């Protein structure tokens, strides 16, 4: 995917094959000889962790689909059958349901890393935008997957989210009826969600290929935020250095994943989803899965239906616009003293929104959600553009090698 391949097949069969389909050379140049910045820290292993999670979700999902029945009369019971009767069914389902949470945890770390180190800046805008596309596909996939067990939260989550489209003027009701295949969330809805839930991960995989391709064209960003100038001095080959570092990251992440699966498999879920869907009774308190809570808080903070929907989707649009909203010429927050503080304020804001999204929309929670929603948008639309003009960055190292030889100064203040 980058640079001329230096791959030379050792065997005669290898040479025969390579001259007909140079796929081994492609793998070699992309994942063996590929030069990675030598100062990458563990926050850079989340790309590999995400690739692993996508694979884990596809493998567990394909086998779960062998036992699941997408019919409103049978879906809930078929999931219980997976839990109780299918050999190792409990493990496969817990791996898949907690895997979704782990996938989102990893993607949020990955996005935050990109924001902290300015990985969205030129020439990596397309790389960043492909990432936003993957994030959107992930959200659609996770939402539809959550509907499949056909519990109370499945049903009412599906009702609330599909009703978001009814806020669109003129055509809203036509669109929701089209999405449902009826006048409410029902069997046609469950069937199409199952079909799409199976399809979308493979679309994600396709966009991941483009994402990695774009990454290997422009090269990786790094904690210093300066480009590789001298391949010899500034970089190390992907294999073994990045391969093994990624393996350590994946292993550590697996410990967390397994802790959830084996010790608190229902901690991140909602007990109401173990009640069969009832179209005539809304649960007292509807909450989405934790990874949607910040967006849910923004939706509820706006006292207007269309406005809430616009701001919620607008929160994602901010990510799309980010490469052009940040006007600073310096990439890494390491050399941007004010931005670094603001970034952590932003992270606190998103976590705060997540907390408020889990609370009933009453009293002080509504006001707090409005304040944090305002900060979320002001951060992107006002603070970032102005900061690039007024902030005085610290001197940026001349090269990656220089930043490493400063004595671990690539990231002062962090172990």
């Amino acid at each position, binding site marked *: 995917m980058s640079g001329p391949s230096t791959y030379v097949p050792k065997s005669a069969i290898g040479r025969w094959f390579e001259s007909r389909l140079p796929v081994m050379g492609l793998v070699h140049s992309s994942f063996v000889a590929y030069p990675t910045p030598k100062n990458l820290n563990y926050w850079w292993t989340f790309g590999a962790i995400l690739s692993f999670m996508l694979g884990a979700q596809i493998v567990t999902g394909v086998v779960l689909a062998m036992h699941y029945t997408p019919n409103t009369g049978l879906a809930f019971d078929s999931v219980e059958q997976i839990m109780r009767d299918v050999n190792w069914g409990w493990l496969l389902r817990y791996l898949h349901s907690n895997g979704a949470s782990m996938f989102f945890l990893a993607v949020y770390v990955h996005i935050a890393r990109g924001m902290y180190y300015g990985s969205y800046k030129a020439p990596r805008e397309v790389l960043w935008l492909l990432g936003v596309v993957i994030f959107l596909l992930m959200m659609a996939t996770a939402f539809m997957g959550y509907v499949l067990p056909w519990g109370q939260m499945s049903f*009412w989550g599906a*009702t*609330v989210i*599909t*009703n*978001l489209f*009814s*806020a669109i003027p003129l055509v809203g009701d036509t669109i929701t*009826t*089209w*999405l*449902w*295949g*009826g*006048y*409410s969330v*029902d069997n*046609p809805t469950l069937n*199409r969600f199952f079909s799409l839930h199976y399809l979308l991960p493979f679309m994600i995989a396709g966009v991941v290929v483009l994402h990695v391709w774009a990454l290997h064209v422009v090269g990786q960003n790094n904690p210093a935020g300066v480009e590789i100038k001298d391949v010899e001095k500034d970089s190390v080959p992907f294999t073994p250095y990045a391969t093994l570092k990624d393996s350590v990251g994946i292993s550590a992440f697996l410990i967390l994943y397994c802790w959830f699966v084996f010790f608190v498999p229902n901690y991140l879920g909602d007990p109401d989803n173990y009640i069969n869907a009832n*179209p*005539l*009774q*809304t*649960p*007292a*308190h*509807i909450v989405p899965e934790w990874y949607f809570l910040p967006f849910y808080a923004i939706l*509820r903070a*706006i*006292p*207007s*239906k*269309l406005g*809430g929907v616009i701001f919620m989707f607008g929160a994602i649009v901010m990510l799309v616009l980010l490469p052009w909203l940040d006007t600073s010429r310096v990439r890494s927050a390491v050399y941007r003293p004010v931005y670094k503080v603001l970034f952590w304020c932003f992270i606190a804001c998103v976590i705060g929104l997540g907390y408020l999204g889990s609370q009933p*929309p*009453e009293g002080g929670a509504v006001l707090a959600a409005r304040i944090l929603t305002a900060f979320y948008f002001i951060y992107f639309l006002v603070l970032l553009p102005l900061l690039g003009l007024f902030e005085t960055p610290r001197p940026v190292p001349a090269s990656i090698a220089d930043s490493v030889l400063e004595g671990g100064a690539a990231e002062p203040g962090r172990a």
Partner: protein
Amino acid sequence: MATQTAEPTRRDMLYIATGAAAAVATGAAVWPFIAQMNPDASTLALSSTELDIGAIPEGQIVTVKWRGKPVFVRHRTKKEIDEAEQVPLAQLPDPATDQSRVKKPEWLVVIGVCTHLGCIPLGHQGPYDGWFCPCHGSVYDTSGRIRQGPAPRNLDVPDYAFLTDTKIKIG
């Protein structure tokens, strides 16, 4: 191709006609894949529900399922009717008189789906003693009209008719 002549040539005409035909054919081929997601004839067939309201005591709300959605049939008390009728229209986000929403003042029939995001509001709750939606806090009065919260519209009134004094047909 048309570098020398300002006049459109026969080839230009054929080019545009072919392109237009291809676009129409593509649209026609795509349409079934879009339209299959809409409700089919069996879903569209207007089902109707009959309900004996003679057994509903004053003050009670009965929920019936119609087209997969709940319909609230509320036997309103004198106090609830008075409250609904005496509200000045200027106070309502979606102004509608109580008379325009009922066929007989004692009986209010509304689709029990919050016009915000489709949750089912809880009866006899909220500051107006009408309905309160637990999802996002919309408040409806005893005429099913939106009074507070994010919902944009009053609860919808379905088509219904009194077959007799004690029987209604919804749909």
